[in-house]
């Protein structure tokens, strides 16, 4: 999801398009935007599954508090994708099976 016109921040700056890998798929993202924004723009709303019941989770608070959007980024687990900027070539994986967190 990208906010094109923000009532306070103004129009969205046109950023550099880069490619990131998400669970093996190459997707286009804007450098510097939150990883979660890039995923939502592609319609990817499930970012992990819960450890106990295996239920889908995605962006909930969107401000780095709830950790529902945590994924593994470049090998680092539990990265909050809503507050982590996109860098070119990032490799992102989700825990879609649940358990083992």
């Amino acid at each position, binding site marked *: 999801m990208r906010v094109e016109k923000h009532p306070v921040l103004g129009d969205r700056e046109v950023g550099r398009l880069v490619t990131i890998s998400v669970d093996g798929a190459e997707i286009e993202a804007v450098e510097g935007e939150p990883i979660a924004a890039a995923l939502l723009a592609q319609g990817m709303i499930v970012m992990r599954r*819960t*450890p*106990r*019941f295996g*239920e889908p989770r995605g962006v*909930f608070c969107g401000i780095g*508090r*709830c*950790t*529902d959007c*945590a994924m593994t980024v470049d090998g*680092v687990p*539990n990265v*909050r994708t809503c507050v982590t900027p996109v860098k070119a070539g990032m490799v992102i994986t989700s825990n879609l099976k649940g358990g083992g*967190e």
Partner: protein
Amino acid sequence: MEGVKLTGALSADEQASVFPPNERAERGPVAVIECVQQIPCNPCEKACPFGAIEVGPDITNLPRLDLDKCRGCGLCLSKCPGLAIFLVDASKSATEALVMFPYEYLPLPAPDEIVDGVDRTGRFVAKARVVKVDTGAQREGTTIVTLAVPKQTMHDVRSMRLVAPGEVFLCRCCEVSETEVRQAVREGAKTVAAVKMRTRAGMGLCQGRTCRRLISRVIAEETGQSPADILPPTSRAPVRTLSLEALAGGDDNE
């Protein structure tokens, strides 16, 4: 401990400062703007087609409602980002009043369904009948629900509860339900730390940020104490998740 700053819900004094006189609600629908903090925000002012809401040039002013200009159309309800505007209407019957409120959860009820009307903190107030569920496009995703409630509760009912406590997660990270937390408290866990040891609530990635206050509230309800008297859980550094590499000084970005 009371007031919206400390509890998230209006105190009795704060409520009194925003309620329209009962005579006005008896005449017909009227907005109740439960906005008592001077935050820089004014979409309500433009939302009203009748010019009944005024914030003025200083955007931190509290909104003022002109009770005669307000026709109770409810257009302002879904425009308030804080979901702080409601509508009450005591003109329809001698015993019941209508309460309209914004509702951004699923599932939605059907008209004529009987639901639990709850107050500003989510506590049960009275059984209420669903009159209307408006998901109209102009609402931009915010549904407006109209409930018929006993008239004496029209200033208390501000939302509804449709989901059973067993289906509500107090701790989202570890998926611990309200029922499980209540059960733990009844079995002797009288502190947030004890509930954590028994249920794992608060042990997740977010480090209890979301659930600790909810758990305090449940303990307070179950033990008849004030939430202010429930000791907070032990906070341990680091308060944000941090890689060991960053702590060891190996990461230039942190």
